[in-house]
């Protein structure tokens, strides 16, 4: 199509979360002229926007912030450094030579970037991909959906869910539940030990949620809305627990769909784009940073550092 406008830039950063913004800031500080962050949401900041609890920002700002405070702060810093942030802008296609196809409310366009950084982050594995048995009623979601509902819209998807998983994010979910007046009926973990080395017994009991180890979800039961779940303990004995929702936490999977749909190579085991030590993808014009290349997933501060490190490699590459 000839009527599609094509713009150019030095570096296009896909994703305006901690790693994307820290990379963009680092690039500007190193003297790279035009750095554009493309974010599909109406507000930049990434996942921390809806993690309404501390601790964020310790490494970056030497103080403890909540997720939303942290998100605002990193966006402001990027703007101060002269980073252009294009919101409501979805990258739909990656092609060779750094050619990106963008869709925004203004129309479809193309962006030609000397280098492209994928900073598209991560998300939790939904119920469907876990092959959990049962009906498919309303009231089943991931932590991301719960937290965005609570912190962005002041809504709750359930009042007494079962929580599946004991990763760090699972305890973040418990904090959100407490804030929102949600009382989980139990928190279950398939393994003998919880996934995090925190004082989890203390944490779960602090939130008043029974923690059950060596327990898996067998079936979800419900009509329009979740009514109960069947869980099985280590001895295989099944138990039906009434609840009005199921919260599937963790099991993070990289949000690498764009790379997967493109010419870039992926690690078949992790689903992350294949990168070298400098975060460089199989096409040397493309780089990746942050949680899209981390398995297991890392906290915002680590993503921030990853953005800085990969941005320096991009600077070297552009000047070399």
């Amino acid at each position, binding site marked *: 199509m000839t009527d599609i406008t094509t713009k150019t830039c030095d570096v296009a950063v896909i994703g305006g979360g901690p790693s994307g913004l820290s990379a963009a800031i680092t690039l500007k500080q190193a003297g790279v002229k035009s750095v554009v962050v493309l974010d599909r949401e109406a507000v930049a900041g990434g996942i921390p926007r809806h993690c309404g609890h501390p601790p964020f920002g310790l490494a970056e700002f030497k103080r403890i912030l909540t997720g939303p405070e942290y998100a605002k702060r990193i966006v402001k810093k990027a703007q101060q450094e002269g980073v252009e942030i294009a919101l409501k802008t979805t990258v739909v296609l990656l092609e060779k030579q750094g050619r990106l196809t963008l869709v925004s409310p203004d129309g479809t366009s193309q962006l030609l970037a000397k280098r492209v950084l994928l900073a598209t982050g991560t*998300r939790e594995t939904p119920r469907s991909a876990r092959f959990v048995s049962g009906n498919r009623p309303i009231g089943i979601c991931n932590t991301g959906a719960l937290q965005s509902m609570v912190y962005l819209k002041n809504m709750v998807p359930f009042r007494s869910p079962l929580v599946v998983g004991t990763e760090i994010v699972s305890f973040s979910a418990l904090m959100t539940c407490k804030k929102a007046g949600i009382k989980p009926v139990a928190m279950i973990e398939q393994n003998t030990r919880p996934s995090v080395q925190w004082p989890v017994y203390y944490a779960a009991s602090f939130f008043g949620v029974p923690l059950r180890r060596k327990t898996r979800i067998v079936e979800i039961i419900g009509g329009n809305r979740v009514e109960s779940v069947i869980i099985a303990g280590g001895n295989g004995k099944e138990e039906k627990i009434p609840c009005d929702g199921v919260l599937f936490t963790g099991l993070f999977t990289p949000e690498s769909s764009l790379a997967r749909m493109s010419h870039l190579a992926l690690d078949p085991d992790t689903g992350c784009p294949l990168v070298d030590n400098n975060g460089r993808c199989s096409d040397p014009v493309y780089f990746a940073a942050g949680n899209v290349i981390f398995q297991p997933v890392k906290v915002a501060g680590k993503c921030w550092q990853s953005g800085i490190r990969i941005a320096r490699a991009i600077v070297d590459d552009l000047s070399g």
Partner: protein
Amino acid sequence: MKSGGQVISTDVAIIGGGVVGCAVARRMALAGASVVLMEKAPDILDGASKGNSAILHTGFDAPVDSLEWQCVQNGHQEYLEIHKSLNLPLLKTGAMVAAWTEEEEARFPGILEKAHKNQVNDIRQLSQAEIHKLEPHLAGNVRAALYIPREYVIDPWSAPLAYLLQAIENGGQALFNAEVTAGGYDGEHWLLDTPQGQVRAKYVVNAAGLYGDIVDTRVLGDSEFVIKPRKGQFVVFDKAAGNLINSVILPVPTKITKGIVLFPTIFGNMMVGPTAEEQESRDDASVDTATLNALHEQALRMLPALKGIPVTATYAGIRSATEQPEYRIREEPERNWITLGGIRSTGLTAALGIARHVETLLKGFGAAFEKRQNPVVSRVPNLANHLSRDCHTPGYGEIVCHCEMVTDREIKAALSGKMPAGSLSGLKRRTRVTMGRCQGFYCSARLAELTEDKFETPLSVGEAHD
């Protein structure tokens, strides 16, 4: 009678808002009849029609000289005639019957003969080179394959929506949460009770699908068939798998089942399914881990390149089979009643043909309508991945569901108009919202806000509070 007191008079009353009911409503409205469709759920497609393989069949393997074959042929033909005007998509995939064993290959002559009897004369056997060229990713041990060029893939939810919308645009009416609880015939008119009021009709078409026998027993006093629900589970793969196959990959059918199919969807995904599981329940569309794992493994065996490609969704549909394999059409000319029973997996294709058959039957009953002149032709929004979507037209506000590129504008449109979504699943079928790879991780909050106070079962159960 505890209805709201209203009595709606109509020529033709249709019980059931599945694909068959919607197609009959359209056909009869265009024929000039006044029509009222009654659906017990808050939206159309709540039963068997919500989960199918979305294939537009040629009828190559239908029972020879059967009504089913006739309806499939007519339905296929009419879909091709009307789909552009209604803005319904068509993916010209073709289908391949793949034989993996000598025993399966030995059945080819029989399949060919049946196809020819069914006037599907463009079926042909492929050479190994052709198989490989057409489906380079298919596992290398395919022995032989037949190719049926006119088996296509369509949008299984927009099509019935378009049919009913056209009925409504041409004077029809649809009632939801309107289960037919009782009915009586006075020799001239039917009076059907629903929670939304009474419907007074000259003719009644029972298209209640999984509940067809129950409705007949309830209103006529008996049923000529018994519904034997047959569940089919499906696994939907990420859009990254969408280009791994080009055609619908059919196994060689056995006497019992058509078998597990690997097929592209109109939305850009790839799917495997359905299973065929007899069950008592007419509404339990639950999935189970063992079956999903088995489907997943089977898909990987047929298509090794699927390895590592994530699963987007899983679901189950329930076919309204009966104790016999054929369509179960009951004609009651003395009472002006038609029952369309036992419409199974071919229903999506056959619906337009069945509707034509209904018109013929009603004429036989003595019905005379004046064909509607210059009928309204209404277009439905396109959801097909290979065609322009709403997000490709500027001014859409913002994208709410990123995985499926669903805009704020199209969600708002689906919540209003002449056929607004009546439930969250109805909204999903109209827009694809939350049906993508993240299953609502990113968009649930915005969707909860957009749909607040719209549905009886909402996404949000209330406010968050400390």
